[in-house]
């Protein structure tokens, strides 16, 4: 029986023992991945993990707060280059990552200012401009981008007798788990409610006492913090930075991941990240077809399953809960 006995019970992360067991199995399966899967899959899952963090951040902004931003590549570049430069100065990995996140978060708060006045497509255009501007700055400034040969990022030294790939995979997986839990906590707290309130009706949210300026800027800052961390992890993974990596296509890929995964859904963000990483790898013979497929998927998702993969997941779960009566 599913009976809530106290208010506190109602607020738990996962209430039923079965949920804990399934979650435990999932995490155990991911931890054991290097033992049963080919090394190339470990690398793929590493990329999915770092990408999922960025998609989650983007989802906080687009899915939860309803502020459309096409400037993610800009934050990604800021995060990646901050991380690269800090790493070159000898700053340890986690501190450099924090620096990348905070720098991008600060930039996000500044870029968020137009959101106080602009809505919908107008905000999208303003942020798009920001993304392109950042790309141009990095492409034209040799000091920032490391010149013609790009910016080398020192590799992580593996520990505990693991190979470098497996070591990096575990660090990235750990970060993904931490970010997932924090995101779940955040969106179910008063902050998440204020974000959703702004999305559903900004006037009503304001009249209910939600300070629009503060929470819109907070959404931008939090979201770009995630993207900055994503950028840092990406820089570490690539080991070499060039401005071309952070063109407009990168913003669009993140956007596709949010839509396909499911708006306003944390687990959807992870599924969406898996989608945009796995599809190009599986279609490596037909690279030219990937943008077409992304465009087509967005159309199909918006028409047939507006809640994305997360909506599918929700429906199949409901089906099994009601089985065999339906």
């Amino acid at each position, binding site marked *: 029986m599913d009976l809530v006995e106290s208010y506190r019970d109602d607020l738990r992360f996962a209430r039923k023992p079965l949920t804990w067991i399934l979650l435990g199995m999932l995490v155990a399966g991911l931890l054991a991945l290097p033992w049963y899967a080919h090394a190339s899959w470990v690398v793929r899952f590493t990329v999915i993990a770092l990408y999922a963090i960025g998609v989650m951040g983007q989802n906080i902004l687009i899915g939860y707060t309803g502020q459309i931003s096409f400037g993610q590549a800009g934050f990604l570049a800021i995060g990646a280059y901050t991380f690269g430069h800090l790493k070159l100065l000898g700053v340890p990995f986690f501190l450099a990552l924090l620096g990348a996140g905070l720098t991008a978060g600060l930039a996000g708060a500044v870029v968020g200012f137009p959101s106080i006045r602009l809505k919908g497509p107008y905000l999208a255009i303003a942020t798009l401009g920001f993304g392109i501007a950042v790309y141009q700055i990095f492409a034209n400034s040799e000091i920032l981008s490391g010149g013609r040969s790009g910016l080398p990022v020192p590799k992580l030294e593996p520990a505990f007798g693991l190979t470098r790939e497996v070591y990096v995979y575990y660090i990235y997986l750990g970060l993904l788990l931490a970010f997932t839990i924090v995101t779940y906590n955040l969106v179910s*707290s008063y902050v998440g409610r204020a974000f959703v309130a702004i999305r559903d009706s900004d006037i009503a949210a304001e009249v209910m006492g939600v300070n629009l300026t503060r929470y819109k800027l907070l959404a931008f800052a939090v979201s770009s913090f995630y993207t900055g961390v994503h950028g840092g992890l990406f820089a570490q993974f690539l080991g070499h930075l060039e401005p071309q990596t952070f063109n407009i296509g990168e913003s669009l890929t993140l956007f596709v991941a949010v839509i396909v995964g499911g708006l306003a859904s944390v687990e959807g963000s992870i599924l969406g990240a898996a989608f945009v990483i796995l599809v190009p790898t599986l279609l490596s013979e037909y690279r030219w077809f990937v943008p077409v497929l992304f465009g087509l998927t967005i159309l199909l998702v918006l028409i047939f399953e507006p809640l994305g993969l997360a909506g599918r997941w929700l429906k199949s779960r409901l089906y099994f809960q009601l089985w065999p009566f339906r």
Partner: protein
Amino acid sequence: MGGLLEVKDLSLSFGGIKALAGVGVAIAEGETLAVIGPNGSGKTSLFNCVTGIYRPVTGTITFKGESLLGLSPDAVTRRGVARTFQNLRLFLNMSVLDNLLVGRHLHFKKNLLHAALRMRSEEVRHRRRCEEIIEFLNLEPYRKSRVADCPFGVQKKIELGRALATEPRLLLLDEPVSGLTAEEKEEVSYWIHEVRGRFGITVLLVEHDLRVASRLANRMVALDHGVKIAEGTPAEVQRHPEVIRAYLGE
């Protein structure tokens, strides 16, 4: 009588249209004041000025001796003014409970770290308050339902509940019974009456249904084309020749 809200000489225009032209309204603590008038007479504009959504051109708005002019809507709410909307503005994709909890937002002790680490003692404290409102408005069956899935009559109740959750001193109700069935009207009028008795909240009411308005209100104000044309007891205002002319023509 100490005036809780005093609006003096309020003017507002959109281009050439004068939405409000020198309107003055005063409401005392504990009373229920109804504002009536034909469509486009400036009733909702008056509400929007008081709650900080519109900036009036001239005039003063004083609440508990403090000016509300130039404050943002959330700052007005923090000072104890809550409102409902004529065309519902609920958070449609949230549960009923979450809608009420947004109403509690300004009473939360805010700490981003507690939010991120799932420390929820504040939440439990405010949940208790929301449950009182849910019980008061008989919303128990809908507690966890998505608002978009609730029937219209229930949505109207949720809006009232959400406004009550902010613990206002003054409640502005914009057509609380419009679009409801006869029974629902009875129910809502009872609650508005109770709001005053049980929570001691002063009510400013905009209503087209004159039967409901005159039953609930101690006093009535009539507007037409942004000008106050009559003020007094409900019976006096409804017999006022200017009011009859405004509604029925010459």
